[in-house]
């Protein structure tokens, strides 16, 4: 079995055979199971995000109860809340500090599209600043919707669908949730 690895392309540069296929599955499985979120709670959605980490909705079963304050240690950035003009450069800076692989969940309508605040003060959707992988609608999305978006992201990571989508859009995967929990 020949083995060549173009390291510049990361895992995608592996010459695919049975062993590397299994290795890749293992890596994707572990990435999905242990993605740590960065604390980026801005407004009301942050309270629901903290509620998702609480005892009733328990993010710990997805390996995500450790919200890392340092972006260097985080994998997912859950933009929870409205992003104002002053906050936009800070958002970009924190996202840039995160190490690859990194994913972005845009939580709530204010982060996804500007929400009900279509005015001068807000960035109308964080996808103008960072590439978004999953959009979670709701104002605020309940913890169940957030968990659904996290599970969607995990499934995409594990199946490799995320990389395919990113390559096709050139930016983030941009998955919109089709159903949300009642809230």
């Amino acid at each position, binding site marked *: 079995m020949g083995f060549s690895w173009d390291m510049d392309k990361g895992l995608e540069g592996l010459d695919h055979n049975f062993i590397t296929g299994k290795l890749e599955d293992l890596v994707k499985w572990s990435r999905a199971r242990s993605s740590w979120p960065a604390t980026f709670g801005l407004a009301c959605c942050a309270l629901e995000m903290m509620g998702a980490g609480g005892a009733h909705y328990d993010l710990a079963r997805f390996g995500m109860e450790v919200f890392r304050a340092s972006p260097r240690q985080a994998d997912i950035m859950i933009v929870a809340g409205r992003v104002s*003009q*002053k906050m936009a450069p800070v958002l970009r800076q924190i996202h840039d500090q995160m190490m690859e692989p990194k994913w972005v969940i845009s939580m709530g309508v204010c982060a996804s599209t*500007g929400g009900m605040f*279509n*005015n*001068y*003060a807000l960035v*109308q959707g964080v996808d103008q600043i960072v590439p978004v992988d999953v959009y979670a609608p709701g104002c605020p999305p309940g913890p169940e919707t957030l968990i659904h978006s996290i599970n969607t992201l995990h499934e995409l990571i594990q199946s490799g669908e995320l990389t395919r989508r990113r390559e096709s859009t050139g930016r983030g995967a941009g998955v919109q949730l089709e159903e949300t929990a009642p809230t």
Partner: protein
Amino acid sequence: MPATESRGQTVLHPSRDELVKLVLDLRDDESFLVCVDLTAVDYLAYSAPRALPDGIAAERFEIVIGLLSHTRKERLRLRVQVPADDPTCPSLFDVHPGVEALEREVFDMFGIRFDGHPDLSRILMPEDWEGYPLRKDYPVGAIPVQFKGITDAR
């Protein structure tokens, strides 16, 4: 001091020059120790009569100050007229230091400068923002929303 009554609340109408002395006297003599609110209104597009007492000329901007007395359990409101061609007003910082952030917000949103404020800079908008958002001639900034690409009706 011209006074009016608005929905059961007393409102005084000092001029800009009388303002600081009045607030100082209210604090020292009448025990209005707390300034709860300082905000402004831009009357550019106001379509109803202004409800001002005689002798007070209506100007474009109005500074509204709310005072509270713990001992008398009373509120008092002051409305000061500020003209558009000279949007300045004396600062109340020396009388009530708690208006520092409130005056900065009025400056940020309306462009009214406060003489005597220690650090008059923008507080809510980025430092290099142009324009004063809450003025009536500043647009809301809404971007037109187009609903495209809806494939299935739910």
